[in-house]
């Protein structure tokens, strides 16, 4: 259906450019019980995302031009958001040999990442950055010192001490960020640090940018809105006061994510980074998992939060308490990620937003196969009511939208 922008605006909805997600997991091929390209693209539309960058930690990993081309062809056959593919940095994401990066870029890889793992070997990572520079594509790095995070399953702090869970210290991220920045400075390659979660990481990027290092970064909606107290059962968003009535059972594996939910001071630092431009983009790290991976003991559960469909409401919450301006977060969902990819905004992609509507997150209403979010049952404010790709209305939610269209 053709998109009639004025009909929506007349109803008081906000129409903004379609969102671009630099970081989503579509799980296909290999883990289709958790998500498929089709369900992931539908979930994206419901979240207002018109372009999503799919991470290559599939089985097999997206590390060959042949597989990449096949996936691009598959993507044309279903409806939904536009999918771009991030190719693996190393063969099989094993961190030992570089993938054929030049050929992958020629086949359509939009960026490179071994996401889920860092490239531990600093020499190999240097080579990856040198190659990335030749292709003109950014390297998206998951910054984590694996020896330091060890067997951690949540943020190391007073909450992990209380719960008796092994912690991942902030320094495990920050020391990797420092290394990555040093290598970006040396090679001049475009380094994009994804899902930064600590105050120290943001400060390192702030200084590197001031020094002219070609580094960009993103943060996730869940790290902007939730703290490590959520592992202990809190369900108060970072800007809300603790509410006994909202308390959930502790050790809920839906709060287990990597990097882990951090402390309150870290959350504030991420917002400060958004406001002063240190943070370029908000990316979901949408990580859907089949229930068998999550319905287990906390320390055995898979890391990840299903995030495409709740991203907007979470960041609007921070706007509501003036932690950032509306324009700042919309830029971080649109222009910011486009710049990271070195591209312009698509000309006719739109997201239509109802800023005031309250809605309850329900598992059976999520289009994603991944129901793994600690927001299930929570009331959020603000929702995408329609999404437009290439001028075509591809998603239209709820009765209020139908009414808006008919009532013109």
């Amino acid at each position, binding site marked *: 259906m053709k998109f009639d922008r004025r009909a929506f605006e007349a109803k008081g909805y906000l129409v903004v450019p379609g969102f671009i997600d630099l970081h989503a997991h579509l799980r296909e091929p290999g883990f289709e019980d958790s998500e498929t390209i089709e369900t992931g693209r539908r979930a994206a539309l419901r979240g207002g995302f018109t372009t999503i960058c799919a991470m290559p930690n599939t089985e097999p990993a997206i590390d060959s031009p042949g597989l990449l081309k096949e996936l691009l062809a598959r993507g044309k056959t279903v409806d939904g958001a536009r999918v771009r593919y991030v190719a693996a940095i190393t063969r099989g994401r094993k961190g030992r040999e570089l993938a054929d990066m030049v050929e992958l870029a020629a086949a359509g890889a939009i960026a490179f990442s071994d996401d889920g793992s860092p490239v531990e070997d600093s020499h190999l990572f240097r080579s990856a950055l040198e190659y990335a520079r030749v292709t003109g594509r950014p390297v998206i790095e998951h910054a984590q010192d694996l020896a330091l995070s060890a067997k951690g399953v949540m943020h*190391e702090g007073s909450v992990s001490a209380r719960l*008796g*869970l092994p912690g991942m210290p902030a320094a495990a991220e920050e020391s990797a960020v420092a290394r990555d920045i040093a290598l970006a400075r040396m090679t001049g390659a475009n380094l994009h640090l994804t899902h930064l979660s600590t105050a120290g990481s943001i400060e390192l990027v702030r200084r590197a940018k001031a020094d002219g290092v070609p580094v960009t970064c993103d943060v996730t909606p869940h790290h902007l809105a939730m703290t490590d107290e959520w592992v202990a059962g809190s369900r108060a968003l970072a800007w809300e006061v603790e509410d006994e009535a909202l308390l959930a*059972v*502790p050790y809920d594996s839906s709060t287990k994510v990597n990097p882990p939910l951090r402390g309150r001071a870290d959350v504030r630092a991420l917002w400060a980074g958004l406001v002063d431009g240190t943070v370029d983009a908000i990316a979901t790290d949408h990580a859907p998992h089949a229930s068998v991976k999550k319905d*287990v003991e906390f*320390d*055995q559960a898979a890391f990840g939060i299903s995030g495409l469909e709740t991203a907007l409401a979470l960041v609007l919450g921070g706007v509501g308490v003036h932690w950032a301006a509306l324009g700042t977060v919309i830029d971080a969902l649109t222009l910011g990620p486009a710049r990271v990819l070195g591209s312009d905004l698509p000309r006719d992609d739109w997201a239509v937003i109802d800023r005031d509507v309250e809605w309850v997150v329900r598992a059976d209403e999520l289009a994603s196969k991944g129901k793994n979010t600690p927001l299930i049952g929570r009331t959020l404010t603000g929702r995408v009511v329609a999404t437009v790709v290439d001028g075509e209305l591809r998603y239209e939610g709820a009765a209020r939208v139908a009414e808006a269209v008919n009532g013109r």
Partner: protein
Amino acid sequence: MKWNRRHVLDTDDWSRDEIETVLDQTRAMIEILQRPIRRAPPLRGRTVILFFAESSTRTRVSFELAAKALSADVTNITASGSSVEKGESLYDTVRTLQALGGDVVVMRHASSGAPYFVAQRTDAAVINAGDGWHAHPTQGLLDAYTLRDAVGDLEGRRVVIVGDVLHSRVARSDINTLLPLGARITLSGPPTLIPLAWRCGQLPPGVTYESDLDRALDGADAVIALRLQRERQESGLLPSLREYSRVWGLTADRVARMRPGAPVMHPGPMNEGIEIDASVAHGTRSLIETQVTNGVAVRMALLYLLAARAGPPGPLEERA
């Protein structure tokens, strides 16, 4: 009754009244255990399932004796020989437990938080018999009982907990149980085995950290030594067991720094010669065997209170 819990998962949110109710009930149970025939009928017809997914002889036997002393039917699902070792998921085990229909599930598990997982998915009352590094509520309660019995009111008393606090569910439960009773706690041990947040002052009110064990013990009212797992050295957390025992081992000289007569406790099993000298472990101040005896009574008290909540339990006295 001040006690109305459906499960015993952690004592971290228990009030002083709730803890004292259990300790008072424990005293009544100790009387039963002192009778010539150590058996009372209140749990007749009720089923207690012991689900130990991590091996433990002492705690399991203690619960078994407790349940049998109250005339419950007791059945075991242990790690060895059960499907847990064959890779059956906890979810499957819970469904089985639910289908078996026990009234109480007593569980030990290597994963912190596992009892919450089970409690959410079963109608039975769940007692946490130790989960990962998180909690061991019955140990905390039996330590509180034993201490109170030995030194009286704990208000203002200072208890030293020394050793591997980081990996210790006993330490966490002791802290949670002793603090509401008015005790103050001093933690001591190697920096690598105390949570960083706790060494940086983010401690619950009433708890302090003192790395120097001699100073920690000066004038203390009691000490609880924790078991040191030998793997800690291999994982880079300790230089050597020899050094550990020199610096943080409980010796007679160190124990003498405490208030005269101050007791020594240990949750067992002990590594004599590492965290505690044999002379201290078996000395006059040691309450280590009393802890074991009291453990049965505390577990009887909890089983009784949980059963009472589910429906009137039978009498504690056999009717003539």
